[in-house]
């Protein structure tokens, strides 16, 4: 009984360790954008 628990714990740890080192495919930035205060009022008139 206890051996089964230990085996399960060991399997879970190995599984966690495998994931932790990065077997998950990488995330990525699909698109980026920005906003500055200067964009809010950009207009000029020649006189």
């Amino acid at each position, binding site marked *: 009984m206890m051996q089964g628990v230990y085996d399960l714990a060991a399997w879970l740890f190995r599984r966690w360790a495998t994931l932790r080192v990065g077997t998950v495919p990488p995330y*990525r930035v699909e698109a980026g954008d920005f*906003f500055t205060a200067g964009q809010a009022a950009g207009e000029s008139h020649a006189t």
Partner: protein
Amino acid sequence: MPRDARDTYATVQKNGSATFMARIVDATDTPIRQAVIDAAQYSVYLLDDQDPDSWTPIAGHDRVTVDVGQTVFDHVQVDPLWTVDTGGYNFQHELDISAWQAFPLAGRHYLVEYTLTPTVGQVIKVRFRTYAI
């Protein structure tokens, strides 16, 4: 299909601030959620046009911790701030320049780099190259 790494380019005002946004997805093109990110920080670097490897950290904006709960959204935001496409964004951060200027020199390029550490997997780099006017 291969996907090259790329930066987002922005023009900012000297001694001004900016709000940076991005849509970050996983390998299945599903937008990430807050629970995916364990920690986040950002740095602003002054770049040297003659040396692409020369990154000089800007005082007060070097490895600054970012509140994940206020920066990464569980649902994609679609509003007028986002102008790139109709897909919206799930990452947004406004540079706080109340104590330290982020872009102190006009006519220079800066790199704003966010580093998001997921609970599992490799770090996510979200980068913006800015030119100060």
